[in-house]
């Protein structure tokens, strides 16, 4: 697992209020009703931490999800943000509509591997293709938790479960799917690797576009046998971290005191930076073909690679493509959204 990085990333333990004037409890949610130890809860707590560190204004955040244990998570963080729990596998379309209606919101979408990989793969692909700005978190446990342990589409080939038997189909790799759909932020992480999850979350929150985080999130009830690639034990033992990641706020001054060439810096659109300290494996996350090869090879070899796989902020988002005004559509006053009598009269004349 990645060692804790110095710059930027570490939570400031004595800080009581952030730049939004809020304390960490302001980012909490309701008590979780998930199983004790569920990976989804670890992720939720990192969302809380990241949102706090990013000084997000809760009323400027929306939380969206589909159906599943994972999709329940949004109730367990950011109670002061509006949330919506939609139908199974269709969160992406709801998020698309929401972001069109109010481009100023920061959207956090939470889904499961069943929700996104099985029923939802179509909406997922098209959402990514449209580059709707949202942090798209997949809490990936390889099973359907809420319906009690069937294989999802990300279950490994040959995996065995007491209830579901042996999985005989190749897993869908949701990072590769995102990449192929031109996603500009593709990362994989592990719920057991809190620091990496947190730094990636912050980077994703700062990213302008769809940011996909496929986080392996063990289901302690149905899929946590050590031989399962989605278990804590397996994850801890096999996680191959690509880079040591730190997110640096725009307002932070960080000296990179590293040997040249060992840290790759990725600048985001309005100031923040992602620092990637190279580890054993060398991977350039700005190289799409390299990212594709990395994922394809990892899949063949059943390697559990985590980190920032691909980043490219240049593609226009759906908001850009629609040429939306700065004022959210949902906030336009009535007179702005009904055309003027003159405009109307001139159109009416066309039909005379």
């Amino acid at each position: 697992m990645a060692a804790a990085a110095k710059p930027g990333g570490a939570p400031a333990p004595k800080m009581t209020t952030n730049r939004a004037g809020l304390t960490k409890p302001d980012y909490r949610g309701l008590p979780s009703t998930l199983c004790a130890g569920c990976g989804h809860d670890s992720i939720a707590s990192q969302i809380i931490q990241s949102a706090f560190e990013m000084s997000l204004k809760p009323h400027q955040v929306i939380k969206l999800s589909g159906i599943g244990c994972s999709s329940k998570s949004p109730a367990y963080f950011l109670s002061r943000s509006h949330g919506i729990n939609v139908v199974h596998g269709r969160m992406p379309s709801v998020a698309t509509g929401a972001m069109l209606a109010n481009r100023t919101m920061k959207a956090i979408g939470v889904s499961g591997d069943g929700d996104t990989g099985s029923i939802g793969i179509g909406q997922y692909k098209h959402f990514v293709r449209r580059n709707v700005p949202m942090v798209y978190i997949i809490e990936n446990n390889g099973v359907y938790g809420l319906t009690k342990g069937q294989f999802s589409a990300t279950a490994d080939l040959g995996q065995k479960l007491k209830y579901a038997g042996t999985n005989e189909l190749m897993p869908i790799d949701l990072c590769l799917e995102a990449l192929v759909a031109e996603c500009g932020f593709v990362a994989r992480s592990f719920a057991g690797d809190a620091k990496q999850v947190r730094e990636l979350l912050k980077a994703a929150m700062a990213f302008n576009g769809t940011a996909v985080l496929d986080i392996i999130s063990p289901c302690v009830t149905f899929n946590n046998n050590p031989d399962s690639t989605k278990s804590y034990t397996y994850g801890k033992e096999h996680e191959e971290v690509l880079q040591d990641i730190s997110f640096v706020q725009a307002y932070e001054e960080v000296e990179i005191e590293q040997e040249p060439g060992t840290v790759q810096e990725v600048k985001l659109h309005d100031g923040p930076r992602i620092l990637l300290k190279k580890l054993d494996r060398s991977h350039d996350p700005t190289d799409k073909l390299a990212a594709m090869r990395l994922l394809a090879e990892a899949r063949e070899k059943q390697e559990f690679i985590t980190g920032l796989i691909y980043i490219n902020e240049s593609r226009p988002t759906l908001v850009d493509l629609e040429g939306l005004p700065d004022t959210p559509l949902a906030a336009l006053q009535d007179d702005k959204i009904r055309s003027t009598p003159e405009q109307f009269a001139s159109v009416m004349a066309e039909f005379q």
Partner: protein
Amino acid sequence: MSTAAVEPAPRAVTLDSNRDPVNDFSVVVATVNGSGSQTANNTLVRALFKMGIPVNAKNLFPSNISGLPTWYTIRISKDGYVARREGTELLVAFNPATAAADLQSLPRGGVCVYPEDAKFERSRDDVTYYALPVKSLIANLGVDKKLVDRVANMVYVGALAELLGIEREVIREALSYNLSGKQKAVDLNYNVVVAAAEFVRENLPKQDPYRVERMDKTDGLIMIDGNTAGALGALVGGLTVMAWYPITPATSLADGVNEYAPKLRHDPQTEEPTYAVVQAEDEIAAIGMVLGAGWMGARAMTSTSGPGISLMTEFVSFGYYAEVPGVIWDVMRMGPSTGLPTRVSQGDVLKAYYLGHGDVRNICLLPGTVKECFEFGQTAFDLAERFQQPVLVLSDLDLGMNAWMSEPFQYPDKPLDRGKVLNAEQLKAMEGWGRYKDIDGDGISYRTLPGNEHPAAAFFTRGSGHNASAGYSERPDDWVSNMARLARKHETARQYVPKPVVDRREGAKIGIIAFGTADPAIVEARDRLSTLAGIETSYMRLRALPLGDEVTQFIAEHDRVYVVELNTDGQMHQLLRLHAPEHAMQLRSIAYSDGLPLTARYVTEQIYEMEQK
């Protein structure tokens, strides 16, 4: 079109009104689709319209892109009737594949105009023929090879102009209108028209009685199709997010939005659009986007047809229970499943009202005219936001895709009804707010929108398992009280939705109830029943679901009430029986659906016959 193919078996009694050869007959133009006859047909219709003569045209086209038979029928009616008529007096037989059969469908004394080289048997000797030398006429004009096919249809325009007495200058203006004033194209086409007209004048002496005369019955009117009208209504009514997936016959509604939004909805100051349109990947995504935008506080809408509303079923239940506004236009087409996408039907009424699993009853609007399509463009949003639920607008192919005469639409005098939305200050002022509380006793709760900066404004939206404060709940009592509130809300909606339009005739013992594009046939049938059979009827045209008390009362007032609709199972008849069970046996169903718009003859004969029993 060929009678054999499309007409129901002839009735014992025929209650057709006598036709006047002046300003009271129909023309059918038979072509193949993709042959570019649209401009020709539109020009004819517009010219008649501009001569002040009431006119209505219907395009009967196949579900493919080119090469198959298409019939375009133009009804000219001095009395202003606009229903489809069975039987047309004039045939433009420009499709050799169907010409022989089309000829059979002419009445005695009918007229057949055809290209002289068309190979089909002129089997009728009770019909007047006019053969047009299409090829040579065009050749003589030296038309560019590439354009020949496109202008060939102008030959029948010229011929009909001459035969019927349509003024040439009006035709020129109509051409200019339809070709958006592109002078070169106008000239080219007009030259063909004139050449054809001259040819007819010189070579084909008039032998039939049919002709038109100027009137003033269309003064000040517009012509527009229902889908465009709906698009305009939505744009003036505050639409900001449109998500749609192509499907006939709903596509042109989205096209209308795309076409007119830049004219109507670019902020005059900033020139920025005040809307977004997305072509979704399918209908599930389209309704998802609509609900996402509606949840966020935008006026959002989608347009679709039967297969689409089927796919939206799950999301509609969600929207109904989570209480998220959104508007769905269902431009109804023929037949379930893949169906016949280019044929009209009113087959989704029952389905739309109950769309969703579990106990769901949706508000549905039932526009009957293009003007109502326009008005309901806004009304649908007002209702969706007031009642915080998906609202369906049930239009149909005939209303949506054919052009109709109408009074011009008025810029709305009503403000938008944005419903019970609390901003931060209002929330502060209100005590004990809960997302699903019924504070006013009308079943409608107050909602806050994302972005509301009040620290208590946020809530979690989810399907059906919640208490009055939007907390997750599986408690039976929460469920029961929420359902009771939703039922109250539905009762409130009964009062709120557009009321039926009623025309009571004195002494009428029988009533007719209908909706949507059944209307023109009924208007005409009532006149016929009255004049030809002495049967007086009252008429209620429904404009929305749920139904209100006035409907029950109307039924109660009459001995028998005929419910006329374009489907097979009598779907509205069923809803009416459920609405007024104490009068169930007074209700009689006339449900007929063969893909074509309803005719007055059918309605007249049905009622006449059923009255004999």
